[in-house]
């Protein structure tokens, strides 16, 4: 049994590693730990479970709170350690810190440190509890011209009303230093064409060096623009800049792809009324013929990967993308790796999404139409823990449902088939270090192996020593169970490319055509006694054994025998109510055709990772032997025991295609279960001379049949 998840058994956690500055690390041997005075925690699973390894360290001087820090290291760094998380520690709670014209959402100690550092008496507003509300306080602060008058001059600077106090000092709320009231200038400062970069925008500077409004070449001559302070974020009087940049407006915004730059570093010409030559240059990147804005990110379509897209509002991956990703032969092949690209100030940065496809790039368009990508953790391991189709096909998860075998090998009843008969598998196959002999992949790939027993019901005249001599349809016609494992079984009913499996409750076919494919017809045929195929059963590669379709009344493990003819089978020939018919119909097989079985098991195996027969990014295929189907023929007695201890083996499928390999004899390398006649088949022991009569006989204490008797498995024959 494979235990999913991380099951690292770490015996020791070192508080400090020997000869290293590494704190709280797990090791296999305590000799790797630094000894006294440092702790060594033994018999624990991980350092994660040691409280002293994951507390919060508070810096009493700066107020900085550092989480997930080792206790001793915190002390050595001069901090105060607490087992609590930062959210539970008062000193780590953030408050609104008003410092001059600025507002910061930081912890009280940091705030006080800033007051000291800047030599400003600011205000702490504990009643403001969110970053947004705190930042809004910036616009609420009264900012204006602070004029100090002397006999000879009027000195001015821009400040808050709180910072503008004293004798001969006057505060002009909302005014610039270049303002005039009436015909009187409030200070000696005058407008100028000087410009400066501040907060990524271009601002005018007055002759005193004070920052005025955002640069706007048109409004340079406007007296209003040199009188009142205009908020570049909220005022309609301030110009705006498109994502392409501007040489006439300085209201740049990096979130809109522009920033304050020297015009010489852009494609823009020299700006007017602007001595600094500063403009709003664009930050976009050009990549493979497309223009991306600053901060925009997207996925790189590298060989063997798919550019997965999702709706950024719901996080749902688009259905068409999920369908495409199911192509295990084209995407997520060995060697493939996802990459994310980011546009950063005109440069395209590359971010690898990690090895072994443990992380995949998924992109989407945000509300303004820009691409946003992220390297998303490929949690393929959780897929195996999901056992319903609905949960598995959650469009936010990277899992897919493959109808057929379940991971726990159970076969569920018909009514639960659609929802529960299948395997939830990784949508993005992970990679393995398959080039190593002891690769993890070996174990995981082996989960994709399947073993199937195909049983035949033959008459005494059939040549059971050489099935090769059977005519074309005989192999399929004589099969009674596990028939889908037979090459070519029901090939006339194969699903077309892209055709999804339909369940009986989803279809209502009377014949081929319209919405009904041949596969749908076969589904109806298997599900419903008396449903007519277009031609006689024997003419197809289909079982004509009644036991393939019908069982003894109400007993799924006990099949009927004998042949059927015509276009349909009837589990209650002659008479019998519909209810009895229902009871005698076997649950339809989990695969209906050999093609479906082959596709199912190969897709399941290849989805597990770098498993099976696949092409890698260098164009080379893996060893065909990695995907092989071997048929083992055994002649068995009616008891179910191997009649001869010689087995004939043949490879019938290798490296993605059916082959007719050499038949060779082999002495049983396989464990064969000896079935008990009575308990397994609910049969009876009968005379070996007249087995078809299945007359009653004695049985041994171990439920096998006595000498000269055979197990009569099919008492329905009576």
């Amino acid at each position: 049994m494979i235990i999913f998840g991380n099951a690292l058994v770490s015996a020791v956690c070192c508080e400090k590693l020997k000869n290293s500055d590494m704190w709280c690390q797990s090791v296999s041997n305590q000799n790797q730990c630094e000894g006294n005075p440092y702790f060594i925690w033994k018999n624990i699973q991980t350092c994660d479970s040691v409280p002293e390894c994951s507390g919060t360290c508070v810096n009493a001087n700066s107020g900085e709170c550092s989480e997930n820090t080792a206790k001793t290291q915190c002390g050595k760094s001069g901090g105060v350690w607490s087992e609590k998380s930062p959210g539970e520690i008062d000193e780590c709670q953030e408050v609104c810190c008003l410092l001059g014209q600025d507002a910061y959402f930081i912890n009280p100690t940091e705030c006080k440190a800033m007051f000291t550092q800047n030599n400003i008496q600011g205000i702490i507003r504990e009643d403001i509890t969110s970053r947004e509300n705190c930042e809004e306080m910036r616009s609420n602060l009264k900012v204006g011209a602070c004029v100090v008058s002397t006999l000879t001059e009027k000195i001015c600077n821009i400040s808050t009303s709180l910072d503008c106090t004293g004798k001969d000092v006057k505060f002009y709320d909302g005014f610039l230093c270049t303002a005039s009231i009436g015909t009187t200038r409030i200070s000696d400062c005058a407008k100028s064409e000087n410009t400066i970069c501040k907060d990524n925008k271009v601002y005018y500077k007055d002759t005193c060096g004070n920052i005025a409004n955002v640069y706007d070449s048109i409004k340079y001559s406007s007296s209003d623009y040199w009188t009142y302070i205009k908020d570049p974020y909220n005022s309609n009087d301030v110009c705006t800049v498109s994502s392409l940049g501007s040489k006439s407006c300085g209201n740049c915004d990096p979130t809109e792809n522009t920033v304050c730059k020297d015009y010489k570093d852009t494609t823009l010409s020299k700006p007017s009324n602007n001595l600094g030559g500063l403009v709003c240059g664009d930050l976009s990147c050009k990549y493979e013929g497309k223009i991306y804005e600053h901060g925009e990110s997207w996925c790189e379509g590298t060989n063997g990967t798919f550019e997965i897209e999702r709706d950024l509002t719901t996080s749902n991956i688009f259905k068409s993308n999920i369908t495409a990703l199911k192509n295990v032969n084209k995407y997520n092949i060995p060697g493939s790796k996802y990459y994310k690209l980011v546009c950063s100030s005109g440069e395209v940065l590359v971010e690898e999404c990690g090895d072994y496809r443990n992380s995949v790039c998924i992109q989407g368009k945000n509300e303004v139409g820009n691409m946003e990508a992220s390297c998303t953790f490929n949690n393929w391991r959780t897929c195996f823990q999901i056992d319903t189709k609905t949960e598995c096909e959650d469009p936010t998860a990277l899992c897919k449902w493959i109808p057929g075998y379940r991971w726990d090998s159970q076969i569920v009843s018909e009514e639960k088939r659609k929802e529960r008969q299948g395997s939830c598998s990784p949508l993005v196959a992970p990679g393995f270090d398959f080039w190593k002999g002891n690769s993890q992949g070996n174990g995981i790939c082996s989960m994709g192996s399947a073993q199937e027993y195909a049983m035949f019901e033959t008459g005494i005249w059939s040549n059971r020593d050489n099935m090769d001599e059977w005519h074309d349809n005989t192999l399929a016609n004589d099969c009674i169970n596990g028939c889908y494992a037979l090459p070519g079984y029901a090939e006339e009913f194969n699903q077309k490319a892209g055709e999804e499996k339909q369940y009986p409750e989803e279809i209502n076919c009377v014949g081929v055509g319209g919405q009904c494919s041949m596969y749908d017809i076969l589904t109806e045929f298997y599900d419903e006694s008396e449903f007519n195929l277009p031609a006689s059963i024997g003419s197809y590669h289909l079982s004509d054994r009644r036991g393939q379709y019908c069982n003894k009344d109400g007993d799924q493990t006990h099949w009927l025998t004998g042949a059927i003819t015509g276009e349909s089978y009837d589990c209650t020939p002659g008479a019998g109510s519909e209810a009895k018919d229902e009871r005698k119909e076997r649950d339809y097989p989990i695969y209906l055709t050999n093609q479906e079985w082959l596709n199912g098991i190969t897709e399941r195996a290849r989805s597990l990772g770098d498993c099976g027969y696949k092409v890698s990014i260098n164009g080379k295929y893996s060893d065909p032997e990695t995907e092989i189907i071997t048929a083992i023929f055994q002649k068995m007695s009616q008891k179910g025991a191997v009649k001869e201890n010689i087995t004939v083996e043949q490879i019938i499928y290798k490296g993605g295609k059916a082959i007719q390999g050499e038949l060779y004899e082999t002495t049983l390398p396989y464990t064969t279960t000896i079935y008990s006649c009575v308990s397994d088949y609910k049969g009876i022991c009968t005379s070996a001379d007249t087995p078809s009569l299945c007359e009653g006989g004695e049985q041994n204490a171990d439920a096998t049949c006595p000498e000269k008797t055979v197990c009569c498995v099919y008492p329905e024959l009576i």
Partner: protein
Amino acid sequence: MSEKKRLKKRGQVTIFIIIAILIIALGVLIYMFYPKIVSQMETETKNPSTFIQECMEETIQDTVDIISLQGGSYVVNESGGRFYKGEDEDEGTYVRYLCYTNEDFISCINQEPFLTEHIELEILNVISLDIESCFNSLVKSYEDKGYEVDLKKGNPEVQIIPYSISTNFNHTLTLVKGDSSERYKNFEINLNSNLYDMLEVSKNIIIWEINVGDSLPEAYMNYNPYLKVEKHKKENDIKVYVLTDEKTQEIFRFATRSFAAPIGFGEIIL
């Protein structure tokens, strides 16, 4: 030509050769000792602050550069860091893990709780011998010039603040010559640097690594368009973050390993 004349002419040639040799030798000597000569000449005109600035600035800058490339520590060994070599580097360095766990699927342990303060101390430790040496040279240079020198040593400190790295030596120098005395207190070197911002971003990245196991570098681009944040994924889910300030061309880099995913399921129990 008479023998006397010929001898006289030969004597002149010899003198010219000797003069030429002397000129060449003088040239070589000037070439070899010129920086010292210039330095000595300059010392005479230099004030003590300039002397210390010139003596220490390069050392501080080099130390900051080395520490910044190695995740905030001057010495990083193999067990505490991941080797990394940038594209334009001739030789790489070990980059310290600032948050690390060697286990899978769990959060990293913060390896340096107060990063800024740690780097300030690290710089100070590395330059302390040079501080000693520079001030000794300063004292000697003034003593050589006949000054009576009194140096009161305080505790130097390094502060990483917005737009600058400030080194304040907290030393006081008093120079006395004859009746005049001069006192120098402002021994401070301010390097233009955006390391403060880079460290703030790094600390934020570490918080994300602790809580989520990853970070979004583009989140910082709007805050400072000139700060380039690169995330390089390495083997075994190790990440090396490289922060570059495009304006100052400073680089700060560090390594992390958090919520790592192993190959396959990790440890398998059969």
